[in-house]
């Protein structure tokens, strides 16, 4: 999301979810929306019922494809080539929005040069998508002035994730499909409050509200507000912290409500890193795999046991209300942090979560106009600078914060690890409909476990029959980093040569296999592409 912020000034969805209904063309890329954001997919279906047309780009035949007019089944990691190819056709057919380009963008020439080579034929060769479909998609998206692009981790979890986002932005800028109602760029957030965690400043380079730590003016303002001395050195990103711990530089880690052991790439590496720490403090609601490695574990509360706010993927601040008392002696996270802080000599004293929210609003104008009482029945989209501001459904109505926005010349770079003779399959990972993330919540829900409690690897019928694998057979998937055993699920969702493993199952954790190669800018790991091989297993015991 950081890359989108670099381009436009903010890394959030530019439209609100309601606006999907008014879209003429919906273009999803690298997003299994029907499974990962089912209720947003419902809106898309509503739009389609009203006549919207859908383009889906994904290496997998994800459920949303059923509703698509055009399905671009690209090879994993070739998004840039596809997007550049589409941009090429848009320009060639003269579908660009010249007025928008002149008034609000710069460096079109650079883009033109960079996509010159990406003829539909060339793009087709790299992506495996028929060139006719690339042209059709370009005509459809480029021909509309009310089109929205949606993406998720299928775009960002690559070594070239930033490039992917830039290439998406290029399309919107070429056609002027941004800054108006029902048209824009919409990264869909995978977790309930990723947006809020970013907004609240849980990022190593910025304070709350994306205010840079390395800008003295900003730092001074926060020092004054917090009455503390602050560092102006940019901190480590989460993936860097793990690396640093492994190297012995990072000595202590305080983890609140996270399970990096399962969710980070290359589990073997993560385990070693965490074990290498002098002190690991984990605050969570369950004794997760990560918590099991901790020196101290603090019992926290879940969403139903506290008051507060979440900010969803469309920048909407919504209330969270306490419904039940926490189990045993478990305490609200805010209270735990405050008490720890007091003991470290920095007193924190909040009478309520609302007091903390108000303090945050004082430090970031985008939230300044929002109060608990205003969002009692319906949330408000930031920016909402004043108490009488209605909130902002779509961004950049009045232009981009930085004036003109640049096109980015994006070169196609293949994924870090490609299939080869030894590891002939490409593995991609992600979520399924029923489980959630590391599974610490959903795997404790009986009906979900009964229905979707078993790990599996999706494999094409062609590969399965070539290797003599029956549906439901236990197989071993191996990468250069590790191996897991799980059941084969023969499905048309994946094409020949591609495997998919959902990330949720610790007993066959996909991240044992994934590569810890990172995007050089965003430091996002390449979960979506790594090379693996598969072997048949003779007995179940062998797996264990």
């Amino acid at each position, binding site marked *: 999301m950081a890359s989108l912020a670099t381009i436009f000034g903010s890394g959030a969805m530019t439209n609100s979810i309601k606006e999907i209904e008014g879209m003429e063309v919906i273009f999803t890329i690298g997003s299994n929306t029907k499974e990962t954001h089912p209720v947003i*997919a419902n809106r898309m279906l509503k739009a389609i019922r009203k006549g919207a047309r859908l383009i889906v780009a994904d290496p997998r035949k994800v459920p949303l494809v059923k509703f698509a007019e055009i399905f671009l089944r690209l090879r994993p990691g070739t998004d840039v080539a596809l997007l550049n190819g589409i941009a090429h056709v848009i320009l060639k057919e003269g579908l660009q929005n010249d007025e928008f380009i002149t008034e609000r963008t710069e460096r079109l020439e650079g883009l033109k040069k960079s996509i010159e080579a990406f003829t539909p034929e060339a793009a087709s060769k790299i992506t495996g998508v028929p060139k006719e479909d690339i042209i059709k998609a370009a005509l459809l998206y480029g021909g509309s002035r009310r089109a929205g692009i949606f993406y998720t981790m299928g775009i960002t979890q690559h070594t070239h994730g930033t490039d992917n986002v830039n290439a998406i932005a290029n399309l919107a800028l070429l056609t002027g499909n941004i800054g108006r109602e029902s048209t824009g760029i919409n990264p869909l957030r995978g977790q309930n409050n990723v947006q809020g965690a970013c907004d609240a400043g849980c990022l190593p380079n910025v304070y709350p509200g994306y205010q840079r730590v390395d800008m003295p003016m900003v730092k001074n303002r926060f020092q004054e507000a917090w009455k503390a001395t602050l560092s102006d050195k940019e*901190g480590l*990103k989460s993936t860097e912290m793990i690396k640093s711990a492994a190297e012995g530089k990072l000595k202590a880690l305080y983890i609140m409500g996270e399970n990096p052991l399962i969710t980070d790439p290359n589990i073997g590496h993560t385990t070693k890193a965490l074990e290498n720490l002098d002190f690991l403090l984990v605050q969570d609601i369950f004794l997760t795999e990560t918590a099991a490695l901790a020196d101290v574990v603090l019992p926290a509360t879940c969403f139903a046991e506290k008051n507060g706010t979440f900010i969803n993927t469309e920048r909407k601040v919504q209330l969270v209300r306490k419904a039940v008392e926490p189990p045993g002696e478990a305490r609200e*996270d805010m209270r735990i942090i405050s008490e720890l802080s007091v003991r470290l000599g920095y007193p924190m004293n909040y009478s309520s979560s609302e007091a903390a929210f108000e303090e945050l609003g004082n430090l970031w104008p985008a939230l300044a106009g929002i109060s608990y009482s205003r969002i009692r029945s319906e*949330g408000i989209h930031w920016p909402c600078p004043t108490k009488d501001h209605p909130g902002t459904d779509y961004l950049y109505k009045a232009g981009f914060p930085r004036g003109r926005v640049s096109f980015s010349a994006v070169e196609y770079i293949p994924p870090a690890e490609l299939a080869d003779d030894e590891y002939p399959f490409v593995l991609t990972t992600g979520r399924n409909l029923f489980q959630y993330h590391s599974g610490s919540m959903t795997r404790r*829900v009986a009906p979900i476990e009964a229905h979707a409690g078993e790990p599996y690897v999706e494999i094409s019928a062609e590969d399965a029959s070539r290797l003599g694998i029956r549906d439901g057979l236990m197989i071993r998937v191996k990468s250069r980093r590790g191996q897991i055993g799980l059941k084969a699920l023969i499905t048309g969702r994946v094409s020949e040569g591609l495997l998919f493993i959902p990330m949720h199952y610790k007993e066959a954790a996909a991240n044992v296999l994934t590569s810890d190669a990172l995007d050089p800018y965003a430091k996002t790991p390449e979960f979506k592409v790594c090379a693996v091989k598969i072997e048949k297993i003779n007995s179940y015991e062998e797996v264990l």
Partner: protein
Amino acid sequence: MIKVLIDGKAGAVKEGATVLEAARMLNIPIPTLCHHPKLSPFGGCRLCIVEIKGIPRPVTSCTTPVTEGMEVTTSTPALEDLRKTVLELILSDHPNDCMLCERAGDCTLQELAYFYDVKENRFAGERRIYEKKDGNPFIERDMEKCILCGRCVNACEEIQGVSAIDFAYRGFKSKICPPYEHDLNCEFCGQCVAVCPTGALTGKGWSHKGRQKDIKEVDTTCPYCGTGCGITLHVKRNEVVRVTSKESGWNEGWLCAKGRFGYSFIGSPERLRTPLIKEAAGGFREASWDEALEYAAKRLKEIKEKHGPDSIGGLSSARCTNEDNYLFQKFMRAAIGTNNVDHCARL
């Protein structure tokens, strides 16, 4: 705008609006069972029939578009008599076991039977009996209670795009079921449960968890994906026993399997109940808050003093609230003195 006169009240509605919509706008109640404002009209229950000047027979208000100058009467002795007959017919093919029904007190059919005073049934006769129960883990499907209003079929098709169920057979034997009457195997979004006006569709987990009257409802926000659907937690004796979503909310009452059925982790026996400190041997022991916090603070202080604040990192959570996250980063920055703070946005 189109002018319409309903029960003597004048109103103006948008072109394409139905008589039912116009009546509701004018606060004129018309009973319905199969109508749902978010779904296409069905016209099967026949309760919303009205008389329209110039049309010889009663018509369903949910399917009839308003035309200019239309004069509508929503209630006459004849209409109410027809409605009562229709209700009696429905109830003649219904188990009428409200005393045991999960939806008692929250059931449109029950409400209407009460309102129309249907006690004796003139039309008692054969009733549909289904021995086989649906074995799916999420949704209880008691098809004997189904009144074939078609809302679930519509929701599954129009809202969810799945069409896991459809009408099957015909006439009195009509039944809404998955293909070949297998157990339901779908996305389990529960949209069908949300729109069912009777006790035919309920959550399996709701069973015997408590009556509506002593359940507390708390509106909050779903803890799963970034969509942030509005949900309502139903709480009884400090336990979340059901999750629903309000039709009036921005997500129109639609949820996914996780949001609707994935709540039992809250009361899981595996929840952490006390602080834990790892012993030298490797195992955890329970500790008091004071001990645990003192110990943690001591260790952090030592490390900070020995290796500097940048030797400490903090990972916060995309599942915690803004307030939790704000405090966490403030703690890392102000109390520890490092910018080593991040969360899992990339994962």
